[in-house]
């Protein structure tokens, strides 16, 4: 087996890479607008769009790093990576940097490392390894093993506290399990267990997390408090109407009525300035991006590659679902960014690395051809 095969180039999934780059470009342009503050005194703040560009370049490096090696080596690294993840999460809880009351970042000197993102990658690699070992619908024992490896990092992440990441971790695992298929008998019991677990979960939540859920259910109850984000976000998106207010013209975002507009609510800025047409184009782009990942999963010739692609699909899918749902007022406010669109170093890097992994799988599908 030669290290550099011409087929590696010919099988490169230009479409997926193109959709990803297009989304990232939209994100940077949108951040340019979200970074602007129209103020009397003209205070200039750190321009997020520029920092995001730097992150994108680092991300591209990560993407290339994730496609040069044969992804199948990861199967052997799955357990060591997972153990390293758990250790990193514990370290974060013990020595992590506290930003806005949450201990989510490990200071690695050059940059602050958000360990929960690392957890998502290692968890989906381990899950892909476990799921590809056998076939058929999942039974109790397999589900319990999956649940156990999911709950350990999830509980550590909840302690940070970062409910959004913890939920995403479990949802990625759940999505992969659903893709494999779950036995009917197990599903029936699970259907009964989930409602029973809800009150328990409510009990575990922090006060501000409960406020957000209540704020989502009844935003008008406290328009300047818990419901504020939801109302302001819907006003921003809604006021875009058909064609949008135009680039840099959104009053909601420019005048800072919109909170977290460069991170979790970046889409609201986009909706305000580009309108329904812009949002429709963005949705199509996102859908094509996701469908490209699915195609990679479909064409993968080994189970590990297939499950890896499915796990990465769910990594993007759940975050897109939760973030857009939140911006559109369909879901409670959870701190989850829109991949490639929202500002965020770790999130951008993780996204590019995972896209690199998908490209890796897609490039090497010919290894199994006759």
């Amino acid at each position: 087996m030669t290290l550099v095969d011409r087929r590696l180039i010919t099988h490169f999934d230009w479409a997926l890479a193109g959709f990803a780059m297009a989304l990232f470009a939209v994100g940077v342009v949108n951040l340019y607008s979200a970074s602007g503050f129209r103020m009397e005194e003209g205070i200039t703040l750190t321009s997020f769009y520029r920092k995001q560009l730097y992150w994108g370049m680092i991300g591209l490096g990560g993407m290339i790093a994730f496609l040069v090696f044969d992804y199948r080596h990861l199967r052997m690294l799955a357990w060591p990576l997972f153990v390293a993840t758990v250790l990193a999460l514990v370290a974060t809880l013990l020595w992590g940097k506290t930003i806005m009351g949450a201990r989510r970042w490990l200071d690695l000197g050059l940059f602050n490392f958000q360990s929960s993102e690392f957890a998502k990658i290692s968890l989906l690699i381990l899950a892909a390894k476990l799921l590809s070992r056998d076939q058929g619908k999942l039974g109790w024992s397999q589900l319990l093993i999956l649940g156990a490896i999911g709950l350990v990092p999830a509980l550590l992440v909840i302690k940070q506290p970062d409910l959004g990441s913890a939920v995403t971790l479990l949802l990625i695992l759940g999505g992969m399990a659903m893709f494999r298929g779950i036995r009917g008998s197990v599903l029936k019991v699970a259907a009964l267990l989930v409602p029973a677990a809800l009150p328990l979960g409510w009990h575990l939540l922090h006060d501000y997390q409960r406020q957000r859920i209540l704020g989502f259910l009844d935003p008008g109850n406290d328009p300047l408090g818990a419901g504020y984000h939801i109302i302001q976000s819907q006003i921003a998106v809604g006021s875009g109407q058909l064609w949008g207010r135009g680039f840099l013209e959104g009053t909601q975002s420019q005048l800072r009525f919109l909170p977290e507009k460069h991170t979790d609510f970046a889409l609201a800025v986009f909706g305000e300035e580009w309108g329904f047409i812009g949002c429709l184009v963005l949705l199509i782009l996102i859908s094509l991006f996701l469908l490209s990942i699915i195609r990679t999963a479909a064409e993968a010739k080994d189970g590990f590659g297939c499950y890896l692609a499915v796990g990465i699909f769910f990594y993007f899918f759940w975050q897109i679902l939760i973030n857009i749902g939140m911006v559109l007022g369909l879901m409670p406010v959870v701190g989850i960014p829109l991949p490639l669109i929202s500002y965020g170093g770790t999130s951008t890097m993780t996204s590019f690395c995972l896209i690199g992994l998908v490209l890796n799988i897609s490039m090497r599908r010919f290894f199994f051809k006759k």
Partner: protein
Amino acid sequence: MHLNRDAESHQSSKSGLLFLQLLVLGIFVVFTLRFWYLQLHRGQEFADRAENNRIRQQQVYAPRGLIRDRNGLLLAMNEPAYALAIVREDSRDIPAALRRISDWLDMDLDLLQETFEKGRPRIRRFEPQILVHSLSFEQLATIEANTVTWPELKIVTKPRRFYPQGLLLAHVIGYVAEANEQEMIADPELTLGDSVGKKGIEFTMERTLRGSKGLRQVDVDVAGRQLGTTLLIPPEAGGDVRLSIDLELQEFVDQALGEHVGSVIVMEADTGQVLALVSKPAFDNNMFVSGLSHADWALLRDNPAHPLQNRAIQSAYPPGSVFKLVIAGAALTHRIAAPTDRVFCSGGLRLGNRLFRCWQRSGHGWMDMNQGLVQSCDVYFYTLGDKLGVDRMHPHSVESGFGVRTGIDLPHESMGLVPSRDWKRRRFNEPWHGGENLNMSIGQGYMLTTPLQVARYTAALINGGRLLKPQLLADASPDILGELPLQAGYREFLVQTMVNTVEESRGTARRIAKPGVRLGAKTGTAQVVRLMSEFERADLKDIPYHFRDHAWMNSFGQRDGRSYVITAMVEHGGGGGSTAGPIIKSIYDYLFSDPLPPLEMDEARDPG
């Protein structure tokens, strides 16, 4: 090779892939519908709300109209003042903000909280609520330096009223103060923190002076910081008011009255223009403008001399002998007595078993109407009063302007009181007694008049019988409210007796005589205590202040077509002629003072 371990056996699950594709289709459809709902179905509504989010409307205070005297001198003006306001919606922690203010301005926190809670229900969203008026420059600097950290605190520029003359015209001008709950309910134009005229001209001319507030559109960011403003409705300044008052004369009269408690009115007889209106003691109306403290208010309210009372129009006194003119007029009109009919005064008149005394115990001897007025003989008027009876004295008095308001443009004017049979039955459920006719005929008993009513009556005697509205606005034309119920001949007779009172050696007002000026007067000494016997003949200074008589004098002075009425009333001042006389004389000296003729001086200096 181990990397290819499961390659041969792997078959991607078809149903799993379909499941993934359905998920993508699902979010595409759901989110597209949601975008359609928010941006197209409800887009306009959200666009409107976005506008409201960043645009706030603010009131722009209109400068209140100026008040000047008849010569254009400023009596009420506006000066810039700064108030501290809070915008609730911009505050994350209102109690903390209030604590800061209390610290900075060294104010009582409880009082601040009370102000805030009281105003709260009347303030619209995003409207600055004024907490502290009239900030000093030091306070202003402290707050300005901290508005970045406390964006909810705003400095509101609001013109503040200032009365340069203070005490001198407080009773005429009155004052403005913050509108209270009832005023805001009655007048929807008023909002919390607005100043409104409470007393005096400020109250009666409120409509003219107020102007109308403007509206400013303010673009703000989420912290409430202003980004730009547009004037939507320019404020309309209030109209100026020019008073009939002559400031220099007012000052002179004020000094002439000195430390006496009482009032003096100087009026133009032909127009009703009030040139001076002094009531003492007075108060400083500037105290009310930025809110009177409880202690200051208690001090004013409980002052036994009642400085807030405008004695010229709000206090009603027994008119005493001043009223004899009215009785004489009634007797002439009803032909009870001719001017030449004589009555013998022996020092008293017996009615039934009661003796009604003349102030002159030794008696005046034979009195005709002229002498009865000039010497103010009580017995002469007892006789008239007995013959006239209350049923004729009452309507004549009312038609002469007593017992009714004069209509001056000042609030809370007293009506005074002219008793009648009906009134006594309603008030005391008692019939009218014959002796009460006698009391009424000399302006005692139940009779009460305000100094302004007396001034207006006197003006009517010399202006052709017209009862004018006492006019405080320089530009208003004379307002005739009635006619004296007197034939011209009788009226002229009464005027002549007033002149005689000044000019005859036995006249009670002889001390005000001034060569070259036609002066007429009638004095009055109104008894405060019915039974004065224990103080009779005692020296004024030996009588306790509150038992001393009120001193009245009403007068007119005419020369070269100018014609003035001056009425003075000194509370517990003793004899009308002796106390009120010198005050009035000095005012006529001022009014008719002749500047040295410049021509003669030139000739004297230039003999060549």
